[in-house]
């Protein structure tokens, strides 16, 4: 079932569509901060505060500053390392070195096992152990 709620950001709520939503998603502080901190027109006022200099924004709230450009400026690129969000990163991880390496290790281990030289358990080689 598709759920739909109609509310305005001013009312701090949102419409949500989705099968498992179960209700509207409140337009969170993040939505507002994303816009007032990262969007909106930048004109140098008389008071010079570079928002990117603010420690808060680079530490506690760094994930709020969501534009690629500003985030890169302050070194926030978590999504580029998150294989879920980056097809490129994922392909690199899945097709590239990691898988190759895993295959080499597995083939060696399989050879070992099938030749009966070892009775040790195959080490778990799930995703958690990859890429470390």
């Amino acid at each position, binding site marked *: 079932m*598709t759920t*739909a709620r109609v509310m*305005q*950001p*001013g009312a701090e709520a*949102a*419409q*949500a*569509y*989705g*099968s*498992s*939503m179960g209700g509207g*998603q409140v337009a*969170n*502080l993040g939505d*507002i*901060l994303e*816009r*007032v*901190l*990262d*969007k*909106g*027109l*930048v*004109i140098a*006022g*008389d*008071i*010079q*505060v570079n*928002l990117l*200099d603010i420690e*808060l*924004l680079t530490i*506690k*709230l760094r*994930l*709020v500053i*969501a*534009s690629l450009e500003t*985030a890169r400026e302050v070194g926030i690129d978590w*999504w580029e390392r*998150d*294989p*879920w*969000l980056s097809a490129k990163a*994922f*392909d690199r991880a899945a097709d590239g070195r990691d*898988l190759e390496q*895993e*295959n080499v290790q*597995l083939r060696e281990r*399989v050879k070992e*096992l*099938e030749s009966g030289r070892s009775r040790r358990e*195959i080490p*778990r080689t799930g*995703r958690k152990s990859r890429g470390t």
Partner: protein
Amino acid sequence: MEPNGTWVYAITERVDVTPLAQIGGVGGRPVRTVAAAGLTAVAEDVDLAEFGEEALRRNLEDLDWLETTARAHHRVIDAVAQQGPLVPMRLATVYSGDARIAAMLTQREADFRSALRRISGRMEWGVKAYADRQPEASDDSAVTAGASRPGGGAGAAYLQRRRNQLTAQKNARRETLASAEMIHAELARYAAETRVHTPQAPQLTGIKAPMILNAAYLLDGTRGEDFAAAVAALADQHPGLRLELTGPWPPYSFAGTGEEGGLT
């Protein structure tokens, strides 16, 4: 304390401040206007003890202060946007006085007018897509169960299973990302302009499912309903994704006057 600075919320052509009297601004003083070059800055007098450079550095680190101030900034901008097109200013745009604001308006008049023309009669809508259905995690139990009987074929079977798992994961991710692109392309047809923002982190959204699309759409005032219907239809077509529609917003994502990446 006497106010000695002026906080600017937005630039517009004209605004009636009467309805704004009920709306609390960032510093608790009445929202007022500064006019020059046929443009109007929506502003509020503030104490530099709280909104000066030193103070801002300190206060912006305070999440409670930041939240209160960000919401107040947004509240005023949202109220002004109900009256007509406006160019929202980024948080913490503070001037030393009206003369400086007037000079800024005069100097950038052409930019502002061009931005206001683009935005006129339009509002921003936001759409986020979350990947609700994640690929199956590696099935370690099946892997070890197969491997516990070493002998001809078990290892090869393991490798095959592992390969299948990785392929399935990869395909699921590719499909999900492709769906997000298709959704954006479809929704962009309704919009005068679009901006694709970086997905927000789960820590921020409070939603475990990864956000795979975070886009803003500048829509003509009459297209909101069609757009919402399109989002609902796309949600039905993509059961593995959760779509979230917010809006209408003041056109924060489209405020650039040309120098900051907006359309010229």
